[in-house]
Structure formats: C-alpha cells, structure tokens
C-alpha cells in the first residue's frame, strides 16, 4: 500500500528536489548579497551564483548564457515575450491600427491567450488557430495563416492539459524563412524533453522553475541574440537589470534553485523520460482495457511521456475526483473553480461537452512509483464503475439510446 495521498498532478506544480533546496539555502542567509552591488564581495558572490545558474539554464536549452533572462515565472516570461516583441516589431506606432499580425492557438495557456487579447485591443490582429482533433499544430497550419504583416507566432511546445506536442522545429524553420519572430511557451516541455533552441529554430522560449522540481516564483525567458538578434520592449522598468529586459533586484535564491533544477533535469532526462513513459503507458492501457467508453485525449504518440488526459463517458468529473479523494489530480472540468464550464482545451479539440465534463489529467513525476500507479488504476476504475451504477446516461447507453439525440432541457 503506497503512502496516501498520492500526488499525480505534476503538470500543476512539482515538489522542490531536496538537492535544489540545499543549493538555495546559503543564498538566504550568509550569501545574501545583491548581485547589483558591484563594489564588495557580497555582491560579487551573488553575481557569481546568478551567472552559474544562467549557464545551467542555458545548457538545458542549448543556448548561450547571455541569452537567458530571469523572471518571476513563465507567466511573466510569456507576457514579456509577446507584448515586448509585438511592441518592438509593430508596423505602426501605438495608438494606431494595423500594427501587425500575430498567430497563436485557441488551446494555449491563459498566460499566452490573455496577452494576445491585450494586443488585439492595442491595434494588432491576432489569429487564434483552431487545433485539429489530435491537438497538434503543424507547420502547414501556421503557414496557411501567415500574412504579409505577420510579426509574431506564439505556440506552446507541449500542451499543459493534454500533453500534445506541437511541431516546433518545423514551425521555427518556417518563421525563420519568413523572418517572423517565433515564441514558444515551453513550461511543460523544458527540463523534460531534449531542447536545442538552435536546432529547433526558437527565438523566444518561456519556462518556469516550479514545473521542473525547482522553486515557485522564478522562471526564465530565452531571447535569441544572433541570427537573428531579437529585441524586446521591456514591460517592467527600473534599475536596468537583466540587460534592461527585466528590471528589479534578482531573486538570487530562486535563480540558484532554477539553475540547480535545470542541471538535474539535464543529467537525468533520458532515463527519467523512459521510466515515466513506461508508467504512463501502463496507466493508459489498464484504464482503457478495464473500462468501456473511455478516450485518451490528444495525439496517440506526439505527447509528453508523463502526462495523460482521459475522458470517462457517462460520469461527471467532480464526483469522480470525490471518489478518488486519495489521489491528487486535475479535473478536465473547471467545476472546482466554480465556473461550471468544461475545459476550453478539450472543447477546442472537439471533445463533446459530455466527455469534457468527465476528464482527468494524470501527470506523473520524479518520485512517482509503480505501486502508486497501480493504486491509481484500481482507484479510478472502481470509482468509474461505482458512478456508472448511479449514472442514468450509462443506463441509456447500455439500452442503446443515443444521448445526443435526446432533447435535454439545459438549465
């Protein structure tokens, strides 16, 4: 029997690796200096630590350390990349229309969608691509949406709800051919999958510390410096830290933690990916074999190894979570946040409202064990079976009634 509760929500956040915490600790107390203090050893020591972390993050991404900007997290990185690039490469000054065209996708994270909606209000045109059913955005889809005035493409590397992987290298190559800035939100990708910003044609890349076993409140933005050199308008102004891209005293302990986390991810990535993929496949296989009317959402292969999103027909997501109270995972439905709206990502893929209401996201992590996976499988299967005994929809399905043909009275 594994220790309860079981954490299977690593796409939401991860625990800090104890090695990361150990690396951070001295920077709260004896090495507390401000890296901006240029004239004493406290400052030099802090600066040295920050530069080491910059190198560690750069190595993870195949970048040069001068191309890494530290931020407060991926949300800030996305805001800086999208608003900063749009403002810098705008075709017309602020206050006018037709300032340029931006391409993104409907199933991006809100931290990309909302900055893009902001751009719409500020005179930019934004295309929100409709994803295909498998969730994977291809080069062809982006190419079809390109215009003469396209200045920026922002597409996530891997989706946070369903784990599908967009064709980033091909899209990066396309953007470089057309001289369009390419930003990718790699929050779920970086640290988990091999990344090489040179090979993959990325100009701007956002990542977060707490998704890779580092601390919360720290992240990074990769900003390409050559072929081509990408410029950004700063959002946050002040002391001119981070080459003027991001003013504010550096979060030294956080940055040291992010660096340590990046280094551990790089060293353990290959074996970890294999282990996680094996466990995820076992989870998916057991659930889809033992239950009928279940669906794994998103492309079958082009998915992150540690994440799966499964829809269970004829049961409702919140009651399913209630039946799995010893397992921490995420419901495809946002019911728990009181909005009663099913996931916009699953709806965007064309998953019906009925199935989108009963989806669970399982995301495995560094300390997930086979024993935990077995427990979760049994727990979920038993819960679905129990709820289907209660479900009028499952009865109708078994009687051969098509529930989509019934005239429901929406309330």
């Amino acid at each position: 029997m594994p220790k309860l509760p079981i954490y299977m929500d690593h796409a939401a956040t991860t625990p800090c690796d104890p090695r990361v915490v150990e690396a951070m600790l001295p920077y709260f107390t004896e090495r507390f200096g401000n890296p901006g203090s240029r004239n004493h050893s406290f400052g030099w020591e802090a600066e040295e630590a920050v530069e080491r972390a910059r190198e560690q993050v750069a190595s993870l991404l195949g970048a040069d350390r001068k191309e890494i900007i530290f931020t407060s997290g991926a949300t800030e990185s996305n805001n800086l990349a999208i608003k900063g690039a749009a403002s810098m490469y705008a075709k017309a000054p602020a206050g006018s229309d037709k300032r340029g065209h931006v391409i993104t996708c409907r199933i991006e994270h809100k931290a990309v969608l909302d900055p893009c909606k902001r751009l719409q209000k500020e005179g930019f045109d934004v295309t929100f691509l409709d994803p295909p059913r498998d969730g994977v955005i291809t080069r062809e889809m982006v190419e079809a949406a390109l215009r003469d005035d396209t200045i920026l493409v922002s597409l996530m590397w891997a989706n946070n709800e369903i784990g599908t992987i967009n064709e980033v290298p091909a899209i990066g190559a396309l953007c470089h051919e057309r001289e369009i800035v390419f930003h990718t939100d790699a929050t779920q990708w970086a640290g988990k999958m091999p990344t090489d910003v040179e090979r993959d044609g990325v100009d701007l890349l956002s990542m977060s510390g707490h998704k890779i076993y580092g601390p919360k409140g720290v992240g990074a933005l990769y900003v390409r410096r050559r072929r081509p050199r990408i410029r950004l308008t700063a959002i946050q102004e002040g002391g001119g830290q981070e080459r003027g891209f991001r003013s504010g005293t550096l979060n030294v302990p956080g940055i040291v933690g992010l660096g340590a986390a990046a280094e551990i991810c790089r060293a353990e990535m290959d074996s970890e990916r294999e282990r996680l993929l094996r466990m995820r496949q076992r989870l998916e296989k057991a659930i889809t074999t033992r239950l009928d009317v279940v669906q794994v959402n998103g492309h079958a292969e082009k998915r992150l190894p540690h994440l799966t999103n499964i829809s269970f027909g004829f049961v409702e997501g919140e009651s399913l979570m209630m039946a799995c109270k010893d397992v921490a995972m995420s419901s495809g439905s946002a019911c728990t946040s009181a909005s009663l709206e099913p996931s916009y990502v699953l709806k965007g893929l064309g998953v019906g409202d009925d199935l989108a209401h009963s989806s669970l996201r399982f995301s495995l992590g560094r300390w997930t064990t086979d024993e935990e996976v077995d427990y979760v499988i049994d727990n979920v299967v038993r819960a679905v079976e129990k709820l289907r005994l209660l479900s009028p929809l499952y009865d109708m399905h078994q009687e051969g009634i098509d529930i989509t043909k019934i005239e429901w009275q929406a309330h």
Partner: protein
Amino acid sequence: MAYSSKVIEHYENPRNVGSFGTTGEVKQRKDVGVGLVGAPECGDVMQLQIRVNPDTGVIEDARFKCFGCGSAIASSSLATEWLKGRTVDEGLTIKNTQIVEELSLPPVKIHCSVLAEDAIRAAIEDYKQKNGLGAEAASDARAH
C-alpha cells in the same frame, strides 16, 4: 471544495439507487412517474422515478440515478428519501431551499437542489399525466 458531512454521507451511501425497469418499460407503467431533468453538457442529469399506489395516491417507493457532482447525487438521494410515504400532492411541497438547508449546500451548489426539485415535479407530473389527473401540476412545473 469542501463538502458537508451530509453530502459526503449521501454520496458514499446513496439511498434508493436504481429504476423500476428500462426506459421502455417505465414508459408503459401507469403506476410509475419518471422525471428526467438537466443536460449532459451542463454536467448534471437527474432521473427520478416514483411508484405510486393508485388507490391512495401515496408514493410507496422512489428510485434515482444521477450524473453529476457530489452535491447533485446527494440532493437526488435525499429527494427519494423525502418522497417515500408522501402523497403525490405532498411531494410537490418539497422545496429546493429545504434541500439546501438539510445538506448545507454552498451557494455555488444551489442549482443542484433546484434540479432535484425540478426532478420531483417532473416525476409527479408524468405520473399525473399518465393517469389523467389534470394538467395543474404540469403548468406549475413549467412555470418554475
């Protein structure tokens, strides 16, 4: 979200789960009234069935099935308990506010109690219609 102990108790031990036959069978039965309310895309569907003694008008048995959150399951489970032993007209006096109070439902879950009240009315209406007992209840239910 934290559920009240009564919601959890009903959710873990739902009362009177089931039906009095297949969809086709209960349609034919004059002593059974069926209420089916809600919609899958809204995340809850309640099916409530009552079996009435035609001589006394007393609801002798009630069954439910529910696709929905814990509060929806608890509301419909509670509705079956409260219906048993009442006459159909007494059944119509059950109000969603009583369910809210009994289960300590938070504001975001009040719609579950409304749905349970709708299910009660729909089941009673169905029984009355099958037995030619006037359209009064029907118009009441629609006005809701």
